[in-house]
């Protein structure tokens, strides 16, 4: 296969950045998209140029490292697929492909296709957990969870934190990411005591990080490599609203402490 690539090159945060064109003539349809970039990079190094920086690790669609925008679509043209799982057989010989990093105010650029997604970690730190001490857990089968509930929680828990939802949202919202975690833990009985406090803390942090608000464009759902449904956004919004209108005692206590 022969492909023309236009790849976003940017030395660092202060560099303006630009597309650079590369012709690549001998790739195989069985190659993954990242293997094509590997081949390109080997060639660039051999020609004394700097290779394209891009993030990748597991190469089996689970670590969430490798997000990039391909021809205007986060994670590329295949539904429910990370870039590492995207193969060239989905492109045609002679195609022109534009490759860009995630673009969002909350994801500052680092280099080429690499951006800083640490805002997502800080949202998790704000409340994306159940506080349990090692050693204090009850026998696992004492908490029965209906299969349907466990399956639904698992649907939400499958989020890989890649940030495609943010990159594809016209508002730069992280609503799907946040909602997936609020829903996963909020659906389970273990997650109930901290449920509303969690929702509020995570949404507050999302706002603080400079993410936009959700206005139901549904672009996030369309590009999510794990096919996470926006129904979870509705679920999370309900928890957040409830908490905002009638704060639970625990939360107000916590908020007072936080102000000190």
């Amino acid at each position, binding site marked *: 296969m022969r492909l023309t690539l236009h790849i976003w090159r940017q030395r660092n945060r202060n560099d303006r950045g630009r597309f650079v064109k590369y012709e690549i003539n001998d790739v195989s349809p069985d190659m993954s998209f990242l*293997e094509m970039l590997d081949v390109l990079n080997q060639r660039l190094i051999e020609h004394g140029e700097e290779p394209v920086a891009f993030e990748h690790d597991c190469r089996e669609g689970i670590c969430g490292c490798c997000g990039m925008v391909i021809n205007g679509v986060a994670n590329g043209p295949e539904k429910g*697929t990370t870039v590492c799982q995207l193969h060239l057989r989905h492109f045609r010989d002679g195609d022109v492909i534009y490759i860009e990093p995630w673009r969002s105010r909350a994801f500052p650029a680092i280099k080429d296709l690499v951006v800083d997604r640490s805002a997502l970690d800080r949202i*998790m730190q704000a409340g994306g957990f*159940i506080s349990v001490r090692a050693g204090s857990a009850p026998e696992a089968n004492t908490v029965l969870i209906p299969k349907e509930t466990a399956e639904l929680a698992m649907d939400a828990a499958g989020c890989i934190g890649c940030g495609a939802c943010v990159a594809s949202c016209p508002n730069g919202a992280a609503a799907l990411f946040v909602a997936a975690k609020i829903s996963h833990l909020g659906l389970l009985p273990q997650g109930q005591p901290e449920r509303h406090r969690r929702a509020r803390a995570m949404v507050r942090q999302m706002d603080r990080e400079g993410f936009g608000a959700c206005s139901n464009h549904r672009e996030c759902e369309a590009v999510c490599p794990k096919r996470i449904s926006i129904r979870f956004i509705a679920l999370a919004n309900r928890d957040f609203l409830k908490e905002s209108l009638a704060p639970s005692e625990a939360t107000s206590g916590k908020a007072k402490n936080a102000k000190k």
Partner: protein
Amino acid sequence: MNLAPKVPSGPLEEKWTRYRSTVKLVSPANKGNFTVIVVGTGLAGASAAATLADLGYNVLVFCFQDSARRAHSVAAQGGINAAKNYRNDGDSTMRLFSETVAGGDFRSREANVYRLAEISGGIIDQCVAQGVPFAREYSGYLANRSFGGSLVSRTFYCRGQTGQQLLLGAYSALCHQVTLGRVKVFARTEMLDLVVAGGRARGIVTRDLVTGRVEAHAADAVLLATGGYANVFFLSTNARGANATAIWRAYRRGAGFANPCFTQIHPTCIPQSGHYQSKLPLMSEALRNDGRVWVPKLKGDTRDPAEIPESERDYYLERMYPGYGNLAPRDIASRATKRVCDEGYGVGVSGRGVYLDLTGATARLGEDAVRERYGNLFEMYECITGEEPWKAPMRIYPAPHYTMGGLWVDYGLQSTIAGLFVLGEANFSDHGANRLGASALMQGLADGYFIIPYTLGEYFAGAILEKVSPADQKFTEAQKEVEDRVARLLSVQGRRTVDSFHRELGAVLWEHCGMSRDAAGLRAATGKIRALRGQFWEDVRVPGDAADLNQELEKAGRVADYLELGELMCRDALAREESCGCHFREEFQTTDGEAMRDDGRFCHVAVWEFAAEDREPARYVEPLTFEAVKPAERSYK
């Protein structure tokens, strides 16, 4: 080299309880005065960091990924074992223990394995409490599946993403501790050296992967939870970034390296499709539950598998190992697969492949049931190969997956350097010469949640630790060495890329130190690796500079270490003149081609001590004694 295992006295069943009840404790008021460095945020690292912080220690956490949540434990698929006996099918702590010891071909330390089995149930309790959405029965009770090497059903799972969910559980606990201010996470930061001062591990030297800044960090203890080294083969099931640098640097600073030749080749991976291949994705062993492995009875049969009638198929695992059939342990299944392919029965373009067939299960159980159990695995297979496993059997071939070898640790997980603890896959582990499926997650979390909190306390309570600072000479020296090495990698400016060296090293190891080994091949490999290492330092090309995000520079440092580790693997494989578990020496096999152990000469852990750059490392042994389970020939027939 002092290899005292420090196993507590008393009956096997009481050792851990006794240890916990008599271990020295650190006063709660005093814990905040201790700083602990944790390198790696997989299951072992994240669970250890969160638990230690919760106890009150100051914890500094380092990972090379952009987020702690991306450590490679995330990719574990099949499940986690626990001796809960929820199925009432004969499971018990003793059975999980004895199966793990036998699965490891009697090359692990009995007391450690027993403790692991004993702790296993508590891990499930802890994970459920954290909100890990394990699979459930319609009644709401936890579901189980079977796994290779066992006759009971004790594996807990979250679809095909168990590792992801367990890791997110540990990561969320870590996040909680960050918010409470007891953990500081340094992401995109790679450990490049260990600092040993006054005979104790007191810090590390790191490089910030974005700014290139090299920095020393001081602490009272260092925990390495940096995973295994299967990536030494270049093509493996591991994440591309997974590397051995942390443990290798610790080895060079005096930590003993145990059983480096024990590397597990996983039987069910997607075969290589081209020279550009960057990794070999794993298809969970759980598929062998409902899947049957076969090749055509006719050599070079190129018919569509659907057109090959039952009578012309060889279900070789069922034929060779009727007792366990498709659930034979990994080493045995991999070797059988290699054998049928070597004999010319392999399928696919390369002939390096066999069929893993779930079409029968789909017909029997219905597509929905199979999809629920393995849905994402099937999607992954389809994604990569463009073929639909619902309709036609998958093609699989073994690939490097896990390393049982690693830094030697005593019962308290302490290495031969005082204050250096090693957890999870990075240590030489409880898996002996072969790990059973669904046991790695169990071990990582056992080490992190339940073992290190006790053993680290014991170390602190018994040690007098002088104050150290990154400005001390030992720290500045180590920092200077790291800076010089980085500069040296950049200064070669030769003609070959880092990857080209790595691929070549991987090919040598796969050929001579892979699924089967012999003395002549191992000697040849040692020479080839040395030559390759020489070429690397003369001809590698690392573009860019040090003060920037430079992924080639990161890789170069790791490959330089692999070029040393690869030689040690061959040396260890050569010295172990027996076949056991994954280590199959052609010279030592029974008449029907099974591994032949030599308990008289090799019932021990081999531990290597680094000498100097151009000197041969020394080999020491920790003898293994078995009281509860008597070493017998493994039989899965």
